[in-house]
């Protein structure tokens, strides 16, 4: 009996994770709700002046979306670790990096995509100029997969430890600094009427690089953390 192909393994993991997310589809709303609540607090804290809010709108939307993703990252491997299916993935004949790429993609589809769809609402609440919105969406579309890939790499190291949300934030923050700088840089440039392609291109390059390297590094991290 020969093992199913790598492609079949990828599709099976993706199907399984999407199906599990669909069965608990109420949970997909939590990151969006969290982002909405945080974005609502900013006008209360800073005052409702439109000029001030529209200046900080893109940055607030960006940081809020990334924090909402950070909260959901702990659930990427933990349920699978607890019910033992993560060890099955490690034993599978298909390359572990590829199977983890399927898991990361499913995670992005179920947490980042709803946030991406809700971000025009966040932007409108904070009076972001309508002309800048496409740039914000493009920056988020490149920054959120980067966040998923780098976050998976870090969260793989914490599988098998005691529950540690604060530790995850501490480990992920240094990795996210360049992503935030380039994404916010693109939006700020667009808001001032300057060319904004260069920071987006940098984000795109980082995304492609992470797409190739992060799943393999994530597999190595998972093997270390589970001592397999």
């Amino acid at each position, binding site marked *: 009996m020969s093992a199913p192909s790598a492609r079949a393994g990828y599709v099976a993991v993706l199907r399984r994770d999407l199906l599990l997310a669909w069965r608990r589809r109420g949970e997909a709303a939590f990151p969006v709700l969290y982002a909405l609540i945080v974005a609502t607090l900013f006008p209360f804290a800073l005052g409702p002046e439109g000029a001030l809010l529209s200046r900080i709108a893109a940055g607030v939307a960006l940081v809020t979306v990334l924090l909402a993703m950070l909260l959901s990252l702990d659930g990427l491997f933990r349920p699978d670790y607890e019910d033992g299916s993560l060890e099955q993935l490690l034993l599978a004949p298909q390359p572990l990096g590829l199977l983890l790429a399927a898991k990361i993609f499913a995670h992005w589809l179920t947490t980042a995509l709803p946030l991406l769809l809700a971000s025009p609402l966040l932007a409108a609440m904070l009076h972001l100029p309508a002309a800048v919105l496409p740039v914000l969406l493009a920056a988020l579309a490149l920054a959120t997969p980067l966040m998923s890939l780098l976050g998976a790499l*870090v969260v793989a190291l914490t599988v098998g430890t005691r529950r540690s949300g604060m*530790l995850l934030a501490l480990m992920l923050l240094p990795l996210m600094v360049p992503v935030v*700088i380039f994404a916010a840089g693109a939006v700020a440039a667009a808001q001032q009427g300057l060319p904004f392609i260069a920071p987006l291109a940098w984000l795109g390059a980082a995304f492609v690089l992470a797409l190739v390297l992060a799943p393999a590094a994530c597999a190595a991290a998972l093997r270390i953390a589970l001592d397999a």
Partner: protein
Amino acid sequence: MNAHSSPTLWNRLVLWYHQMGSPPYFYAFAGRWRPWFIAATLITAAIGLYGGLVLAPPDYQQGDAYRIIFIHVPCAWMSLFTYAFMAGCGLVGLVWRVKLAEILAMEAAPIGAAFTFVTLVTGSLWGKPMWGAWWTWDARLTSELVLLFLYLGVIGLYHAFEDTRQGARAAAFLARIGAVNLPIVHYSVVWWNTLHQGTTVRLFGPSRITWPMLWPLLTMALSTHLYLGWSLLGRARVALLELEGGKDWARAIALKDAPHG
């Protein structure tokens, strides 16, 4: 046939490396060398501080306030050196699973974090009279702050595991990711500063440093390196005893040092 000629330098190095990997050997070695490191650290620090605080002339622009440089700059160098040391030892531990390399990497992390913290504190103490602000979002300052977070992440991850060696391997992996990330952070912050047209602050007032100021600085740099050896050897000894508590050699040492023999 010359097979039994005297061992080459390379052979001796390989032998030394393998002997160092043995915990009892390293424990004894560290115990022998640590007093020398302590003495050398204290002597070089006394010479360097006397040269820097008493002999060196005051700066023509900054007066006596610049003298914090003799603490700040060696600590800043050491914060990076210790990180490189930690990442290097971590890599050796990951690849060859050398127990001692893992211990050295993990025991270097708190020392490096302390150097980074001292750098940040002395930097902001220096910044207040010089630029009128405790903190500025300059590339070097921001990178140093990120470096502190990297150290804290490594320490936190190490302690999050029940099993010490597993924690050391995971934390060493994180240190390696950080070593790749740190230059990226530095250059992205440089880019960010130029985009924002922020404050153009030069960290160093004097553009060229004269010999009476330079030699105390270099002596202090030597002293901080020696301090790393002092602190690391002591920490590694304790960590080795903890890890190897059940082994005969560790038990023999504990019994020898116990009050009732």
